[in-house]
């Protein structure tokens, strides 16, 4: 267990440094890192400090939020198909963020952006849990998720198309696919407090999720309050996914792929899977964000595109497996 933690932390650290030295400006890695630590007075220091550093930090934060929420949702619903992107939580958070920006609320009050995204996410998680029930039947979950994602995506497009700003329509791709291009420290400070609170809440669900593997009655017999567990899960997921989406757009599949890959290493214990998926999510988004800059450097490839290319085949595989199990 501790070995897994050490390995994951090492991977995240290595990818973090790799992300810092990957970019469009041509400069050697050593030179870049020196410009980051010491203000050399040339433009490279500005690039490293104001563009690359917040980008790498955000990749790690967003990845942690998505991995952690995916693992928590899967643990609570006892269903490997639950994922904030797929069940419409990210999409609804994006709608909340877009509404805050387009109504001008975010311009007059910066915190309105993460708050509004959080509100969108709360509505989606609440709807999903109400529809799928505590047992989280696979079909109900996926169907409810499809409906919520589709509605949130359509409303996001509608709001942006109605904007008086001719460039707002170009933002649709960002909100539906996610990107970390040209984010600044302002975005880090905006999202970090919400993510932090969300992570703490999700971490607090660990014992409840472990107990829940014995079924609801078993968990209640162990003194777990299911109502409290659900509240922690809804608010924790909404806070972390809402904050992540409000600065990076909706990035799907992270919460699906990461817990799936790491589950065997933690003995399928949902509590332990939480922190492992948080670290794994950070590694995955850092890697994906490096890839979008290496594969198509001058095209501003969106993160969600890359994640879908990796995640969708796995998702289909999981559906196939679930179908065999229930058949």
């Amino acid at each position, binding site marked *: 267990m501790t070995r897994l933690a050490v390995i994951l932390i090492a991977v995240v650290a290595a990818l973090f440094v790799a992300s810092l030295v990957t970019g469009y*400006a041509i400069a050697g890695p050593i030179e870049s890192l020196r410009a980051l630590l010491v203000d050399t007075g040339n433009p490279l220091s*500005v690039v490293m400090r104001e563009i690359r550093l917040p980008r790498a930090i955000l990749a790690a934060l967003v990845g942690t939020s998505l991995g952690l929420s995916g693992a928590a949702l899967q643990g609570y619903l006892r269903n490997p198909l639950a994922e904030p992107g797929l069940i419409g939580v990210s999409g609804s958070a994006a709608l909340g963020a877009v509404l805050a920006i387009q109504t001008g609320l975010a311009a007059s009050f910066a915190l309105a952006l993460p708050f509004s995204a959080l509100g969108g996410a709360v509505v989606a998680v609440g709807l999903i849990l109400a529809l799928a029930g505590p047992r989280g039947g696979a079909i109900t979950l996926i169907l409810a998720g499809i409906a919520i994602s589709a509605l949130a995506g359509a409303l996001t497009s509608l709001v942006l198309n109605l904007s*008086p700003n001719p460039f707002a329509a170009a933002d649709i791709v960002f909100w539906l696919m996610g990107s970390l291009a040209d984010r*600044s420290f302002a975005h880090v400070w905006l999202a970090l407090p919400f993510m932090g609170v969300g992570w703490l809440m999700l971490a607090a669900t660990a014992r409840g999720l472990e107990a829940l593997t014995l079924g609801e009655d078993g968990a209640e017999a162990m003194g777990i309050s299911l109502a409290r567990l659900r509240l922690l899960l809804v608010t924790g997921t909404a806070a972390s996914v809402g904050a992540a989406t409000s600065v990076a757009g909706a990035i799907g599949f992270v919460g699906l792929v990461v817990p799936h890959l790491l589950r065997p290493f933690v003995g399928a214990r949902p509590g332990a899977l939480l922190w492992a998926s948080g670290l794994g999510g950070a590694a995955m988004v850092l890697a994906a964000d490096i890839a979008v800059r290496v594969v198509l450097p001058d095209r*501003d490839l969106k993160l969600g595109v890359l994640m879908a290319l990796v995640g969708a085949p796995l998702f289909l595989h999981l559906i196939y497996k679930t179908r065999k199990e229930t058949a």
Partner: protein
Amino acid sequence: MRLTKITALIAAAILGGAVHAAPPSRVVSINLCTDQLALMVAAPGQLISVSRLSHDPASSPMSAAARSVPANGSGAEEVYLLRPDLVLASSFTAPATLRMLRNLGIPVEVFAPANSLSDIAARITQMGKALEQPDTALERVADFRAALDALHTPVAHRPRAALYYVNSYTTGDNTLAGDILKAAGFDNVATEAGIGHGATLPLERLVMLAPDVVIRGRDYPGQSRAEDAFSHPALAGLTVKNALDVRDWTCGTPHVLDAIRALRDLREELAQ
């Protein structure tokens, strides 16, 4: 005497018509740029409709003149119902619309967008030919060339400038905007970055190029994330100027002269 004159006129009209059809009298333009060219060249009453965008003062430098002509929404159905005998469109107009109009038997004249200042004269001439107003077109071309020559002054020091649009887009020397920048006495850093036409210039490359001035697009009402890069703290060390009146830059028309003048003023302001 009067009768013979009328007869002669009728005869001339008939004979002339046999050799050469009368100029188009119900011309519909469905593109912001062809709207402007047509408004400059057409005889009174010849142009019966312009695109809706032309009525918007935020998009068209000729909105006042355009408002005297009814607007259309540029769709094939709507345009057909206006019974035009000539439709003016851009090569960027949706191909389905052009095909539909041609299938309905309406002549369509397509104008390629101008990629340089010299293209502008060619487009005015093309418009004169399409509307059969060659003399007016000739006059407009002469006026434009004279005004352009008058703006041409040798520049001792050419500042390095970057054109920066939303979504980190920039344009190089082989574009109309690049040509305008050159004519105003700037060197374009896009050339240093190997960009000749239009391409994404990531923010960090812009910072590394360290241009003397970043010329950005103007603010539109409402919000969009696409414009976020303009307020990125990494640009704090650079001079960012909001000197682009998009209306004067969008189309290859003599209005680009105003854009060149605005940039020339900016260059002089920077030199102080």
